[in-house]
């Protein structure tokens, strides 16, 4: 099979999932509002002490991003599983990792990118300076696709299981920890004057690794779950 057809397949899956997300907007918006509300609760609960808020801001935004990403994982495969379209995808002559890759990218575009875009606004509640907000956006931009990629493996493994939602968080959240540490760490390092470059480079490395391996692992997990 030549590469242009692979690209067409990728685009086909991507477009399909984006259209589906667009027609079921409430799912996308609920993740976004969850993210907004969770972050906004902290300044209200902790009180207006600037130094405290500034210290915890990056961590809070990142933890909220992790939870929001968890929340949206359930939708990645379960709808397609329930109506049988996932089964048909497994039976197509296309390489499954490629289709999975398209689905995960679409998932990130609808559930990850909005978080990245709204993050600077939410960061302002914690009194983060403008350049720190920029680093926050950069770290989220590198980190959220990793969350989607890792999460896809967990979502595929728990597909069709009762109580899969809880199981997927137990499975995936520990794997999110490195991303959390280096994501929030990047902003903190920047604020403390150390520079965020080392953290961001590591996040970039995570991204490359997850893009390379997660689609294969997810495809294998799907084949097991669909038996």
């Amino acid at each position, binding site marked *: *099979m030549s590469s242009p057809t692979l690209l067409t397949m990728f685009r086909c899956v991507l477009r399909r999932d984006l259209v589906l997300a667009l027609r079921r907007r409430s799912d996308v918006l609920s993740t976004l509002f969850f993210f907004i509300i969770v972050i906004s609760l902290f300044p209200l609960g902790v009180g207006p002490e600037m130094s405290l808020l500034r210290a915890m801001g990056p961590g809070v935004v990142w933890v909220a991003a992790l939870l929001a990403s968890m929340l949206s994982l359930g939708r990645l495969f379960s709808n397609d599983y329930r109506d049988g379209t996932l089964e048909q995808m497994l039976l197509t002559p296309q390489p499954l990792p490629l289709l999975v890759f398209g689905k995960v990218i679409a998932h990130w575009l609808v559930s990850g990118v909005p978080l990245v875009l709204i993050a600077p606004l939410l960061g302002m509640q914690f009194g983060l300076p403008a350049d720190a907000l920029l680093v926050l956006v950069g770290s989220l931009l590198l980190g959220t696709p990793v969350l989607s990629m890792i999460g896809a493996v967990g979502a595929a493994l728990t597909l069709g299981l009762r109580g899969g939602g809880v199981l997927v968080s137990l499975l995936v959240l520990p794997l999110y920890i490195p991303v959390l540490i280096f994501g929030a760490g990047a902003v903190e390092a920047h604020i403390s004057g150390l520079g965020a470059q080392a953290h961001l480079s590591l996040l970039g490395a995570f991204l490359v690794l997850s893009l390379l391996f997660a689609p294969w692992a997810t495809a294998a997990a799907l084949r097991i779950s669909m038996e």
Partner: protein
Amino acid sequence: MLEVSNLECVRGDRRLFKDVSFSLRAGELLQIHGPNGSGKTSLLRMLCGLVLPAEGNISWQGLSIRDLREEYAQAVAYIGHLPAVKDELSALENLSIASELSGVHLSQDQVFAALRRMGLGGRELLPAKVLSQGQRRRVALARLLVSGATLWILDEPLTALDVAAVKLMQSLIEAHLHNGGMVILTTHQDIEIPGFVTQRVDLAA
């Protein structure tokens, strides 16, 4: 040619069937019979390659389907008991995306023609969630019209279909067999296609 030898299916700690063997040549129809829970769907999913058999071998044109994978996927069209129709997409989008993914690019006209042939004329652009069960089934079956697959594997293709659609299905199967295709199906109604070899496999519970 599809050859199946000594297939055994184990789900959990229950053995559903064992020693299922048959071979299917071009222009032949195979009906799988058996009471509910006897493993008909499991057998079909094995034949598609979705489930690995506990024992036994499935080979296509002399090669094991596990080695063929994508080549075999090209030769098979499977309609399961889930229609694989997306509620949010129109019949048109459902069919064109499904065929695109199976490697067949269709023009808009071809998709319209296939849907009209399945009796969905005038409903091509409606989202599938407003269609009835039978109409959704028809959208699913329209995939057969546009796929270039040799082997059709159909799980209860006649459920939810009205009399006219059952007739249509029979004529589609007949045309497919006539063109040298093969059909494997499970059904509780007997389908007789005169002039073609009809094999039967009974999965006793």
